[in-house]
């Protein structure tokens, strides 16, 4: 196997996904197939090749430093699962 059960556990934690045992077993086997297919990549010689992050030359677009209207607070909160006054409410983080 190219990916162990422990690695599947670890990746699920990193990806913030609660998976049950059945899902973990299935993903392990499917990811294993996919990673085996990706062995193809090792065939290509990439010495002295620059990696490419995107297809066009990126630049940093700048605009005048003037304030523009932003979303009103109540609109920004309108899709929140648990809004409280003008805040996004989350479970207690520090005991």
């Amino acid at each position, binding site marked *: 196997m190219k990916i162990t059960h422990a690695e599947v556990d670890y990746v699920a934690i990193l990806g913030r996904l609660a998976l049950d045992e059945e899902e973990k077993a299935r993903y392990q086997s499917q990811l294993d197939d996919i990673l085996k297919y990706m062995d193809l990549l090792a065939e290509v010689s990439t010495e002295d090749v620059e*990696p490419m992050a995107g297809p066009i030359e990126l630049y940093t677009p700048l605009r005048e430093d003037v304030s523009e209207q932003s979303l009103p607070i109540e609109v920004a909160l309108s899709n929140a699962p648990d809004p409280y006054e003008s805040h996004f409410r989350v479970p207690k983080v520090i005991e």
Partner: protein
Amino acid sequence: MNLYEYTAAQLRDMLKKHKVSSKELTQAVLKRIGNVENKVHAYVTIDADRALAMAEAADKRIKSGNAGPLTGIPIAVKDNMCVKGQRTTCGSKILNNFIPPYDATVVGLLKEAGMVILGSANMDEFAMGSSTETSYWGPTKNPWDLERIPGGSSGGSAAAVAAGEAILALGSDTGGSIRLPAAFCGVTGMKPTYGAVSRYGLVAYASSLDQIGPLCSDAVDAALLLDLILGHDPKDSTSAPRSYEPCVNYLNKSVNGLTLGIPKEFFNKLDNPETSTAIEDAKSEYEKLGVKFVELSLPHVDYGIAAYYVIAPSEASSNLARYDGVKYGLRARDFGGMIDMYCQTRAEGFGDEVKRRIMLGTYALSSGYYDAYYLKAAKIRTLITQDFHNAFNNCDAIFCPTAPSPAFKIGEKMNDPIQMYLTDVFTIPVNMAGLPGISIQAGLSSDGLPIGMQLIAPHFEETRLILLASAFQQVTDHHTKKASL
């Protein structure tokens, strides 16, 4: 002929001459939706009241004499483009109740042009799929054969146009998601150059690959819609700061003397005889028009799928981190603490394929594997892009099939991710290099299924694709064939 069977260009003339009103047209399309939507399932959300109000406003504008070419034309928008005040779900349970507080830039452009927005078209969840089967809302069916998939991920957009449930549609294409459904549903679909159409308000999947484009009946309609949406947007930092020549200036022009490249790596893979025949026939048509063909090589395209399935899931795993049950979208009911809230929310809200790609991307970016996967794939992306640049020294555009075979059966590839991924073998390299590509219908299989052909041009040469597609459609009638429903 029913109103919903005309092209946008034909309807524009009829609207202008007051032979029909936008309201009558919109009512005809809504009636068609009422008749066939239960078979096709092209939409996630339909807003008939809003569509009729937009149609009435368009009629006023037409009467007052300041209508644009697309004023009053009904359009479907893929469910990953924000429509202010209308639920936009990206085909996912996690955004099941998301009501965008703003319009995507492209949606704003449709509104300014006086178009009639019918609703949001079905798609693979987060645009991850080649069949529209991964949608939380269930699959869209191919109007040509309801037991088959329409292609994906913009399957709802393509099926809506093919079924007469919309005159035009917008889709998005990360690895073939416009061109593949266009091919499978027998419509014309273009992925423009990366950076040519604003992505502001498009739900992100893989940000270095995603691009919005048109799905429609023919090259004329594609030109009309492209002329509306191509352009610089300061709200998208990857939007190219340049201007665009009108695509409509390239309709009905001669292609005599142009050269099309045939990449041997693509043709070597073609084992479907009916697709081969359709592509050969299309080649003969072009030759009659004075087009020359030259065989060429794209030595690294064979690694396109493997590199794509490292890069796209890597970007997705990062982009989808925002779905945390805090700012918008679903939040799980039962959880332990903060971290568990994230984990339970995402487990409940994401479907199988999305979880698989998050896992794959997270793995490829994780410590110890980054060099072997992400960095390696990013270097191969450079080589694939160089292959295309070299090829364009010897040809004006590249010619190949859009897909290895016509549409497959619903369920056929759902349990075999790699087989599903291989469907995009001819389209993925185009996204890797950020090039524009168009799919147009080349013929029908013996089962009556559409077969698509693809043309690929250098960066920002959308007009060349319109020129080539339009010249082909002038002398053939494949694009006028309709699914019988």
